[in-house]
């Protein structure tokens, strides 16, 4: 008799929500290295999706990630990752996250596929599944053809990819990526960003990307947390943060540029100086009179405006504002 039972429902290979709610919550976090304060009263919420952790070198980004992993014990404050308290459930958290460290890291004496499978087993996968997934993720990160080579013979770019592979082999709910494009050539960097973008937006992997490279964060992330000197300077959706700035104008003048910048700042404008004698002037809110006001100010200072162009606000503007105000 033929089987007439209904076919099982097709399972979506990438269900949209792995974890509902903020993936990371830090509350009044203080972390110190001896007497040096690394994180100072950090309070931040990282929503689901791709979140950029942006800041200059020494801002405390890596320290925050290491605290979330339980490597560093805060002197004050609390942290939750995937709804679990870091202080009491570090192992349960680590079972569900993947970590790609900033520095070169591998397990010596192993080829790529053995290494990635080994990492999968350490994360709780059975040996057979770990090996199968190791092959898959190595192809995914573009190391399929080099998977039987000893990792110590890999180039810097390949080492970055293998670090990503070991971080995703166990299919984590949350990925911590610490400076993932460090030391990569432009093509490799582009491919790495493509992978991260794909993981976040097509594979629905929540991730926190720590970087000091604004374009990397802007390309891959939807939200951003900007850190500076151990504190959170600003945070929110990138689109909203860029929008809240009002209008940006690129301006080039003939005359005393430095004096004009001071005049603009005195008049309440935010000004960012660029490398090519072009300043970016932020006109707050939705004012349409920005150009007129700029021309008037220049005229009063007897400065000639040579170039004025409406520009799109970038993450760089958000970053400059956040770090500048910190």
């Amino acid at each position: 008799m033929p089987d007439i039972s209904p076919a099982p429902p097709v399972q979506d290979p990438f269900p949209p929500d792995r974890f509902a709610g903020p993936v990371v919550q830090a509350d009044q976090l203080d972390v110190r290295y001896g007497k040096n304060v690394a994180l100072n009263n950090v309070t931040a919420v990282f929503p689901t999706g791709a979140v950029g952790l942006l800041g200059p070198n020494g801002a405390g980004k890596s320290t925050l990630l290491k605290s979330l992993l339980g490597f560093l014990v805060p002197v004050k404050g609390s942290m939750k990752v995937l709804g679990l308290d870091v202080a009491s459930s570090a192992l349960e958290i680590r079972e569900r996250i993947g970590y790609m460290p900033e520095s070169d890291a591998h397990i010596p004496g192993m080829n790529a596929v053995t290494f990635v499978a080994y990492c999968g087993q350490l994360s709780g996968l059975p040996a057979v599944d770990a090996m199968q997934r190791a092959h898959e993720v190595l192809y995914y990160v573009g190391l399929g053809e080099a998977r039987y080579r000893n990792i110590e013979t890999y180039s810097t770019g390949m080492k970055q990819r293998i670090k990503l592979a070991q971080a995703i082999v166990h299919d984590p709910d949350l990925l911590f990526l610490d400076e993932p494009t460090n030391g990569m050539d432009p093509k490799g960097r582009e491919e790495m960003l493509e992978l991260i973008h794909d993981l976040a937006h097509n594979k629905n992997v929540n991730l926190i990307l720590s970087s000091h490279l604004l374009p990397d964060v802007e390309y891959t992330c939807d939200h951003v947390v900007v850190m500076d000197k151990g504190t959170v300077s600003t945070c929110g959706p990138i689109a909203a943060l860029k929008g809240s700035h009002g209008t940006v104008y690129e301006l080039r003048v003939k005359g005393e540029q430095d004096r004009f910048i001071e005049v603009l700042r005195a008049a309440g404008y935010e000004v960012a100086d660029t490398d090519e004698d072009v300043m970016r002037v932020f006109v707050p809110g939705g004012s349409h009179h920005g150009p007129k006001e700029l021309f008037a100010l220049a005229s009063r200072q007897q400065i000639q405006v040579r170039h004025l162009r409406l520009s799109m606000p970038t993450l760089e503007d958000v970053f400059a504002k956040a770090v500048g105000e910190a």
Partner: protein
Amino acid sequence: MPIHDQGYRRYLGTRSAIGGSWQVMTRAGVMALISKRQFIGLMLFAWAPFVVRAVQIYVSATFTQASFLAPKGETFREFLDQQGAFVFFVTIWVGAGLIANDRRANALQLYLSKPMTSAEYIAGKLTILLVFLVGVTFLPAMMLLLTQAMFAGSLTFIANNLYLLPAITLFSIAQVLLAATTMLALSSLSKSSRFVAVMYAGLFFFTTALFNALRGITGRSSFAWLSPSASLEQLGDVIFRLEPRYQLSPAIAGLAVVVMIAGSIWILTRKVRGVEIVT
């Protein structure tokens, strides 16, 4: 379709319970070592004294003229003393790079970002060393005891020397724990396995030389506690119910061994961390 679209999918299989990662580490470490022919050669060579002793037991059990070769309680003590040389070489071969290589390759942060505590990491590494050290101490000593019973065709010797079972066990534990924890602690202090090997050999020879120098100067052997190997020898004599060879209280010898092991574990707990803090 880009190739990466074909390669990543959700994992819907089972996951093992937290707490078993150290076994994965041990298995991988042991497999890596036994895949090396030279190391297998060393392990086989470490069983050469067993073969010699087994022949001795066979001859004494078979030929009455050779009954003077029959094993006594102290035969097993001597055997374990002889194995000390192999303990030294196996410890260096297996142990020098166990943590040092991980530190060199920044692997600690990878290990500890997995569901694994630093205690599990240490347990996993320690077990690799213990497996091979037990393989050159406890295992051949017990095999020798069984061989004696087999060739003699009776359990009389074992029954008359029943203390040998706990004595071999206890002394082997002390011997392998002392070597393994000391080596692992040294391995956690450096990124170079060669340097660790030199440090271990240096510690072994320097402390022995210091003890012998003090013995030569003072004419007394009460400084045996300065040398871990001399302390272990003294402890071994007591465990095997033999006359202690040094003028040192067995309690102090035992304490020296315990302090060495505890100190090594303390170093390990301080050094095995996901992040190295330099202040």
